[in-house]
């Protein structure tokens, strides 16, 4: 597809779309599982629908430069609305569909939204709820008409109706839209994505057509993607990763986007589609692996033995075979056998048989986890990037995979390190500006035009970038040694029994940790041991569970002890939280990152307890239930000590 980029004029998404409609009108552009089958839309159909939506919007008074809010699951018509908005020179603004109305109100105000396309009744209700706070909002267009019969508000309009309106408009002024598309320029803002941000209010990141096309172009080139790829689009549309993979790259390479039936059926749909190109954050891979292991526990003894034998074989030589390194004939044969008996079928049931390239990003991925997928032959790679860089900074090249690095700088990208270790990047994919925030823009892009990522890292001997932590989170213990909380927490989270961890230590004498156990994994473990429990809180408080977690933490300590830079930040004391950290309670971001400061504040007593040397600490917490009610839970949490290792001793042991 590199030829498309070379051609002049294909420098905006609408032009790319129209080009595909001409070049490959009958290839599937999108599929959606609905009514029991994969409803397929060709590029020609997509282009037609996009035209209709665009003309409809124009008819409603949508102007060049207007922002269009788009809220909902990954539905074809929402993607089309993105393209339609771009056709008119507007700026699509995607919102996380699971955000509560109040969170949405901020974005709608900030982006001065007049028009919104939303998925269904649920989102319409949110819009109606905050209607008074967003006086600019003129029209809410809904995709799914179900349940909308009795909504009489003039604000509302069905997408069907809009499309119909647009079709008439298009018939009457057939050159209108082409004219609008022609007006677009590569440097126009193509999309606004709000960064969730661990601190402060979200900021709207404005990216241009040129930036996203460059990022997409680099990726397509890098992994030799063609129009034959199939990708499953199930991650939030408001996330930069989904926009890059499911929109920008698809628009560039002309491959097929597949939308699952619903959130619950993603796994089944994944299996049905069997994507060739796949993107998922580490937690998805982790959940999958946990499920694989849990399900294998139920298998018969012989099968389990066989499974573990071949897993061992794959650990030994699978990754090397994938990387094309030389492997002994005996191992090759064993791997071939394993592929027949285990890896092949396993990939099949996971829906990964056809994967050519899979990426993960958004958080650190555990080395065991990463190795597992690679060793069974899934070409899983890591990438590194931010919303501000179109999620495109570093990519791992085929055959040069290192478990703990994020790869080399991607095509067109320049990366350098600041004196304090902060990673700085430059390239065509950088944001144009933060919306209405010149101050923030100025703050994040330095005088030389480098974007300051805020991440700390270093290059290894082969030029691969290694990320340690957020630059600002890297602190110091009282003895002056480095404290990189994320680094430690990630190591903790690589244990299947630990779901979340929050560590403390900056300006303290030693490191302590809050732990969230993984209810599914630990629950399963407890069941196998015949332990009864009534729920998360009960399970988390059990002695055996504390014992289990302590063992995990000790392993991490041993591991930390081997690294001279990190040996000082071994964990001395920990506790297991009585509730799961929850985005609804503000403890996690919508992308499930821990909001460290918020947690430290909310559980101030517990942190004090950890450092005061107490054996236990009483705590009362407000929680929000799924139905919106709030309640209180309280518990007396036990605090335990963990063994630490001297750097010397472990070196010998290792």
């Amino acid at each position, binding site marked *: 597809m590199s030829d498309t980029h070379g051609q002049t004029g294909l420098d905006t998404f609408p032009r790319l779309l129209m080009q595909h409609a001409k070049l490959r009108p009958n290839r599937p552009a999108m599929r959606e599982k609905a*009514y029991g089958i994969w409803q397929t839309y060709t590029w020609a159909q997509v282009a037609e629908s996009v035209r209709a939506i665009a003309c409809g919007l124009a008819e409603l008074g949508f102007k060049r430069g207007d922002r269009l809010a788009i809220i909902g699951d990954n539905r074809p018509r929402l993607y089309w609305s993105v393209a339609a908005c771009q056709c008119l020179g507007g700026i699509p603004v995607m919102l996380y569909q699971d955000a509560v109305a109040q969170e949405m109100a901020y974005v709608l105000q900030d982006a001065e939204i007049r028009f919104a396309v939303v998925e269904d009744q649920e989102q319409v209700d949110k819009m109606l709820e905050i209607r008074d706070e967003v006086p600019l909002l003129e029209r809410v267009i809904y995709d799914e008409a179900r349940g909308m019969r*009795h909504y009489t508000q003039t604000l509302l309009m069905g997408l069907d109706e809009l499309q119909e309106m647009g079709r008439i408009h298009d018939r009457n002024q057939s050159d209108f839209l082409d004219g609008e598309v022609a007006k677009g320029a590569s440097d126009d803002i193509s999309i606004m994505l709000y960064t969730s941000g661990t601190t402060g209010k979200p900021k709207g990141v404005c990216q241009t057509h040129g930036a996203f096309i460059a990022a997409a172009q680099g990726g397509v080139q890098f992994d030799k993607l063609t129009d034959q790829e199939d990708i499953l689009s199930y991650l939030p549309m408001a996330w930069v990763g989904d926009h890059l993979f499911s929109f920008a790259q698809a628009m560039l390479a002309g491959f097929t986007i597949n939308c699952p*039936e619903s959130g619950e059926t993603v796994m089944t749909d994944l299996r049905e589609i069997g994507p060739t190109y796949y993107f998922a954050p580490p937690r998805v891979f982790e959940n999958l692996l946990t499920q694989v292991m849990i399900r294998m526990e139920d298998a018969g003894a012989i099968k389990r033995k066989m499974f573990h034998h071949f897993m061992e074989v794959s650990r030994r030589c699978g990754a090397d075979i994938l990387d094309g390194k030389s492997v002994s004939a005996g191992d090759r044969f064993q791997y071939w056998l394993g592929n027949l008996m285990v890896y092949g079928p396993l990939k099949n049931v996971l829906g990964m048989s056809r994967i050519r390239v899979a990426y993960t990003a958004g958080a650190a991925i555990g080395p065991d986890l990463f190795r597992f997928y690679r060793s069974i032959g899934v070409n899983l790679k890591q990438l590194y990037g931010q919303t501000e860089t179109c999620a495109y900074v570093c990519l791992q090249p085929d055959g040069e995979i290192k478990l703990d690095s994020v790869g080399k700088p991607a095509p067109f990208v320049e990366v350098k390190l600041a004196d304090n270790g902060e990673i700085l990047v430059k390239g065509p994919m950088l944001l144009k500006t933060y919306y209405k925030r010149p101050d923030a823009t100025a703050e994040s892009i330095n005088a030389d035009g480098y974007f300051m990522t805020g991440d700390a890292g270093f290059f290894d001997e082969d030029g691969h970038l290694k990320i340690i932590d957020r630059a600002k989170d890297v602190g110091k213990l009282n003895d002056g040694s480095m404290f990189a909380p994320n680094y430690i927490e990630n190591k903790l989270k690589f244990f299947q029994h630990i779901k979340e961890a929050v560590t403390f230590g900056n300006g303290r004498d030693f490191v302590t940790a809050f732990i969230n156990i993984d209810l599914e994994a630990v629950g399963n473990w407890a069941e196998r041991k015949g332990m009864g429990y009534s729920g998360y809180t009960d399970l988390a408080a059990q002695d055996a569970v504390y014992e289990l977690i302590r063992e995990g933490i000790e392993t991490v300590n041993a591991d930390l002890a081997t690294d001279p830079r990190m040996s000082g930040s071994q964990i001395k004391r920990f506790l297991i939280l009585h509730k799961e950290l929850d985005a609804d309670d503000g403890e996690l971001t919508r992308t499930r990152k821990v909001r460290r400061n918020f947690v430290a504040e909310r559980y101030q007593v517990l942190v004090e307890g950890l450092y005061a040397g107490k054996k236990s600490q009483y705590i009362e917490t407000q929680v929000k239930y799924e139905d919106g009610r709030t309640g209180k839970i309280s518990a007396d949490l036990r605090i335990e000590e963990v063994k630490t290792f001297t750097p010397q001793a472990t070196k010998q042991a290792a």
Partner: protein
Amino acid sequence: MMNDMAQDATAEGGRRIGEVILDLQHISLSFGGVNALTDISFDVREHEIRSIIGPNGAGKSSMLNVMNGVYHPQKGNILFRGEPRQKMDPHTAAAQGIARTFQNIALFKGMTVLDNIMTGRNLKMKCNLLEHALFWGKAQREEIEHRKKVEDVIDFLEIQSIRKTPVGRLPYGLQKRVELGRALAAEPTLLLLDEPMAGMNVEEKQDMCRFILDVNDQFGTTIVLIEHDMGVVMDISDRVVVLDYGKKIGDGPPDEVKNNADVIAAYLGTSH
């Protein structure tokens, strides 16, 4: 919660309660000399939700069975759309647009959810046995055309993920939903529901309530409902008939029935 929905449906609704569609006059039914129903008269109007309540053994299910021709009353007249009917088979009733569900789930245990709901469309499928045997051309087109309708029902009831599951493997609440789906697939004008929420938890009840109201509202289907949960009945019904020992002791809008002394004595008084 349910109250809100009920008000939504009646207050803003595009549905208008219309003419009498089913008129039952002086119905008496007995089995081997035991009277199940004695001289019962009431009517059902188009587009309304009509509930029948009463203690166990009051004759509610018998009443439903009389309506769709499973039982034949010894005395009394039944007028459906003004036409009197004397003796009628259940499948004739079905052909006239009367569908129903059962108190004890009456799904076809050996078939999948999809096939169960497909059977609901059998009256609308016209191909003959030979065409079915060839399964080519007309028969295949017909199958696909009706599959689409069934998929609409599946979508409406939000049971996509169990489409191909044998019904026997489903939990009770879902089975009830599938049974409703089978009845809906027939696109009935009159839908008889025999305790659609029996044995369900609160959440399942809310869902079922929503579906019933949606059916009534979106398709204008007239619904006759037997239900034990007084909260639900009072919330969603337009009019309520109260039976006790096979006799009618009350009839009217929910509020009126709620305050009827006989009803309180016979039913509400004893069970609340």
